[in-house]
């Protein structure tokens, strides 16, 4: 200690102190900073296979290194969750250019999808694929999910998740068939027209509550025929054409003379 005290007026002392301070700050930051989410333990082999798949199927639009082009966005930093959502729902590879990518049967099996996701995740940190526990509808609170859904989602996806129209041919899809994992990923990554609901604005627990509410809607309505849950349009059509038709038929029958 004495030796250290003796050298504290040394002319390099400030430089040494500054270096020390920087080292401590960096070390503390590295230890405390939120670790960027990454695809769970992807081997280099997976990443290489993923890269080959990417170059064969995606590079035409997204560029050979996923840097994006005039027609397609860069995929650096979109994360595994985004790839898994787009590919497992069949939206990517995109069938044709249009207002929005249409859902179709998935073009890659689960393993290939995971390899593609691993490759894209290796390009830059982004949201990871949620764990089974994060999307387990049994663990969520449907009532809170309903409140969150009304505020954040219902304006586009309809109060019970039946979907709805947006502008210029775009639309918010119905959510009854969507898997729990895909619902979570869509909130996290904001595919296409959908805005992003990151973990700070809608926490992972709140996302699970929303999933619980949506899973609850799959059983349909207790009231019987829901007519697509589309509200006054389909209900009005039914009332005016079928309901009024029946009433007119009954009036004609009552007024007609018996033979």
């Amino acid at each position: 200690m004495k030796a250290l005290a003796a050298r504290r007026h040394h002319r390099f002392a400030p430089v040494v102190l500054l270096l020390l301070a920087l080292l401590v700050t960096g070390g503390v930051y590295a230890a405390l900073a939120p670790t960027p989410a990454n695809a769970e333990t992807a081997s280099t082999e997976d990443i290489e296979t993923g890269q080959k798949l990417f170059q064969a199927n995606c590079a035409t639009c997204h560029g050979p290194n996923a840097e994006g082009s005039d027609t397609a966005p860069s995929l650096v930093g979109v994360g595994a969750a985004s790839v898994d959502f787009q590919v497992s729902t069949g939206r990517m590879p995109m069938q044709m250019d249009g207002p929005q990518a249409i859902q179709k049967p998935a073009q890659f099996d689960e393993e290939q999808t995971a390899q593609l996701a691993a490759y894209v995740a290796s390009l830059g940190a982004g949201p990871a694929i949620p764990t089974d526990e994060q999307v387990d509808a049994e663990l969520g609170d449907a009532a809170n999910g309903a409140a969150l859904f009304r505020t954040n989602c219902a304006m586009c996806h309809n109060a019970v998740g039946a979907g709805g129209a947006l502008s210029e041919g775009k639309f918010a899809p119905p959510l009854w068939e969507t898997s729990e994992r895909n619902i979570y990923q869509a909130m996290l990554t904001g595919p296409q027209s959908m805005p992003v609901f990151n973990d700070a604005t809608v926490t992972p627990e709140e996302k699970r509550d929303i999933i619980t509410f949506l899973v609850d809607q799959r059983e349909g309505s207790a009231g019987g025929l829901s007519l697509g849950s589309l509200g006054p349009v389909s209900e009005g059509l039914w009332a005016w054409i079928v309901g009024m038709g029946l009433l007119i038929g009954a009036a004609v029958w009552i007024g007609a003379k018996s033979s």
Partner: protein
Amino acid sequence: MSDNQNPRTPDGSQRELGHRDEHGVVGTFADPGLPEHRSRQADRDPEAAKRGERQVAALFGISVIGTIAALVVYFVIPPDGTTAGVRLSTLTLGVAIAFALLGIGLGAVHWAKVLMSDHEKVDERHPIASDEETRVAAVAELEAGVKDSGIARRGVLKGAVISALALFPLTIAVPLVGSVGGDWNVSKLKHTMWKRGMRLAIDPSGRPIKAADVTIGSVVHVIPDVPEEERQSHEWITEKAKAVVLLVRLDPRDIVSEQAPEGEDWSYDGIVAFSKICTHVGCPVALYEQQTHHLLCPCHQSTFDVADGAKVVFGPAKRPLPQLPITVDDEGYLVAQSDFHEPIGPSFWERLK
């Protein structure tokens, strides 16, 4: 039965519809009279009548079966709390009650149509006015009453009774108008509860929002940050309805224009906040398309461009959505710089801007 079985015009000639004679009088329609009575199968054939009777009895029988089925269903299939269980219970109960009621209705109508007498009848209308004698007597009695009361002679009484009758409705009208009158404060429409330094919170949880938490492409539905107790109060609903805001973070390079006047900055690093109340008729505008930065109103498809100061790009709205000036406080939370600089929502009669 009518005695006018053989319709003719008074002079016995046929007249065309709408024909005018030499005096310009439109020709009257000939009374077509009643059509010839046509007897039904059940009138001619006793076998058909019997068949009709059986049909009516069967319809009432269906009603009886429906009623019994409804009672059975009520006890056998109670709603068990699951969606499918409630659906099955209400569906079976509803179908059984429908048969129970339709059976009665159809049976009664079929009975009337097939078996009850269907001979045409004419009922003559009688004049609505009473005869002259009754009317004269009524007027005489009224006049006698007026004379007896002496109202024409006693001016004071006349004034008193008219005043009493004229004043009484005030006991109803004054409280009625008075209770409405508490809320004639139009200035309420011109401001919301946002004020300088008030934090922006997430709807519905009420968590305050840090600027760093809002990533590009995010949208947050925002309410003013007030204590939990205040959010349970009755006034909160009114205040929230005016103060709701949609917060969006854009890539700052995408922002074309803002509403802030020269020298002021109402956004924070690409984060912009706009009133969620449509300037057309006040629906909550919240359908945000991330790629086009368009904000769509679900009611009448008014579309606002968030990157361009929420200008109207489509639809019936006439004004951009008012922008809430925001910034961050010392702790990194998003706060309002002030209230909105213009009234939110649809135009109203005293709106100046």
